C-alpha cells in the first residue's frame, strides 16, 4: 500500500481561500479488504478529507447512482472530489469501475486513482487509449 502522503504531496488543494470554510474534499474510497479500508479511511481523515468508504465497485456505482438506467439523475449534487479504488477486487475490478465512471457525464471529470501492489501499468495503458477514444468520438 502507499506510504502516508501528506496533502501537499498528493497535490490536492485544501486551500481555504478556494473552499467554503466548512467544506472538506470528499473522497470516495473503494476496497474489498477491510484492513485497507480502515487504513485508507484514517489516512484520508488525517489529511482533512471527508471520506466515504465502500467495499466493492458495485457499491461504489450504487453510491454514485450509476448502477441502473437512471444515469445519475439527481446525483449531480453529490460532491466528490476524488475517487480512490483498489485494482483487483472480486466481481468488478477497479479498472472496470474507472471505465464506468468515465462513461458518466456527471462523474467523468472526477480524478480516479487506482491502487495496486501488482504491476498494472500495461493494463492502465489500455485505459489511456480508451479515454482518448471516448474524448474524440463523443
Amino acid at each position, binding site marked *: *500500500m502507499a*506510504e*502516508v502522503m501528506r496533502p501537499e504531496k498528493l497535490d490536492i488543494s485544501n486551500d481555504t481561500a478556494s473552499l467554503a470554510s466548512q467544506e472538506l474534499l470528499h473522497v470516495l474510497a473503494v476496497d*474489498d*479488504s*477491510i*484492513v*485497507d479500508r*480502515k*487504513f485508507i479511511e*484514517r*489516512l484520508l481523515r*488525517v489529511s482533512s478529507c471527508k471520506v466515504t468508504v465502500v467495499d466493492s465497485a458495485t457499491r461504489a456505482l450504487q453510491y454514485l447512482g450509476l448502477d441502473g438506467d437512471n444515469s445519475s439523475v439527481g446525483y449531480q449534487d453529490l460532491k466528490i472530489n476524488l475517487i480512490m479504488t483498489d485494482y*483487483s477486487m*472480486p466481481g468488478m475490478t477497479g479498472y472496470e469501475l474507472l471505465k464506468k465512471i468515465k462513461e458518466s457525464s456527471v462523474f467523468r471529470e472526477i480524478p480516479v486513482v487506482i491502487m495496486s*501492489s501488482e504491476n498494472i501499468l500495461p493494463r492502465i495503458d489500455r485505459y489511456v487509449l480508451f479515454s482518448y477514444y471516448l474524448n474524440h468520438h463523443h
Partner: protein
Amino acid sequence: MDTLVAQLQRQFRDYTISLYHQGFLDDQFTELKKLQDECSPDFVAEVVSLFFEDCEKLIGNMARALDQTGNVDFNLVGSSVHQLKGSSSSVGAKRVKGLCVTFKECCDSQNFEGCVRCLQQVDIEYKSLKAKLQDLFSLEQQIVQAGGRIPQVDI
C-alpha cells in the same frame, strides 16, 4: 537508578527494533504508527486486530479449498493468498507477506504439497506475529499505566 518507566521504555524500544531487524515488521508498520495520535490512540491495535481476523478467515478458506482431495481449486486458493498478501502488505507483516509470495507460486504451479506446506507456515507465522504484537501493546499499556509516554522509535 533506573525508574520503572525508563526500564519499560527501554524494553519497548529494544523489542520494537528487534521486530524490525528480525523481519517481522517493515516500513508499512511505521506508516501505520504515523496515523495514530491522541485522538486515535488505538488505531494500530484496531487495524492489526482486523488483520489477524482476516488471516483466520482466509487461512480457513485456503484449508477448505485444499481439503477437496482430488478436486482442489488452485485458483480459489490463489485468490485467498492474494488477499492475504495484500492485507499483510498493508500492515507491514513482512514475513507473512513473504510466505504469501511463495504460496502464490505454489498455487500457480498447482503444487499441492507446496501449498499444504505454505499453509502450515503462514498459519504459524501469523500466530507468532500476533503474540509478539500483543507483547508490544502490553508494554505500551504498562508504560502508560506507570505514568510514562510511549517513546518514538526510529528504526
